[in-house]
């Protein structure tokens, strides 16, 4: 089993860091795709099925919240697990995103080990 993972972040630096951790964490990864906001992510998903989405919230034009809401409305997409990474660690935001269907919420700053562990837990739970 190898995974296709979509990273959604408007920061090229964060896209790179998350991709690096994914490649280093020993997961069997078939492909890492990137998008810079929620609507760009949906465009990617039209042609590329993925096993996991790692998304920021606060992005220009279309946020991570928009993306998670959209995924929840579509039968083909709602089963894709979503990990939210954000500097916003307020309780209300965490509860909101988890309530919308995110499988995990990882506040920034995070260590590579925390991201790795979160990805493994989410993928492990989905494919258990």
């Amino acid at each position, binding site marked *: 089993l190898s995974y296709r993972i979509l990273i959604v972040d408007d920061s090229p*630096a964060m896209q790179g860091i998350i991709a690096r951790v994914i490649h280093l964490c020993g997961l069997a990864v078939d492909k890492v795709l990137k998008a810079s906001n929620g609507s760009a992510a949906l465009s990617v998903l039209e042609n590329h099925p993925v096993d996991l989405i790692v998304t920021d919230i606060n992005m220009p034009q279309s946020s991570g919240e928009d993306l998670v809401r959209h995924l929840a409305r579509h039968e083909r997409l709602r089963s894709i697990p979503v990990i939210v990474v954000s500097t916003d660690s307020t309780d209300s*935001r965490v509860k909101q995103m988890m309530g919308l269907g995110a499988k995990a*919420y990882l506040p920034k*700053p995070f260590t590579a080990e925390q991201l790795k562990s979160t990805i493994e837990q989410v993928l492990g739970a989905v494919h258990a």
Partner: protein
Amino acid sequence: MPSASISGAGVVDAPRKAAAKPVSERFAGNLPKCLEDVLSTMFFAGVIGEISGGFDPDAPFFCAVVSFSGSVNGEMGLAIPMDVAADLAADFYGGDEGLEDRAVEYAVCELANIVCGATLSRSAPSAHVELTHPRLAEEPFLAGSQVRLFELMDGAVALSYRFDPE
């Protein structure tokens, strides 16, 4: 540092009591620890302490500014000498040497974004605040702002911030 919340397995952080102080005061108090957490966690750098001088605004630097709006409004700037920024960015990206300026700028912008967002979350845990995409600035300090200087293991970083009246 907050832990991850995982559906069905993790625990959402316990509610944090907010003191009656204005957010701007709590932000000022939380800033040193947040800066230290971000630098040590994601940039593998240490903060020696807050200093009253040692940042040369005439030397080449990168400055990234993040504005925030919502329950509280204002902006925060982070200025860092170019050579220090290059070292931090190399550690951030995993030891890449000879990064292009653009890659260093991205790392500085992300550093500013995380420091600002994390400090606001810690200072106003029940607030709803949106951050803008970080932008580069030509001046090292925001006009009319509070300026704080921090000594790193190799260099210094300047943080300036201002809040609209609450």
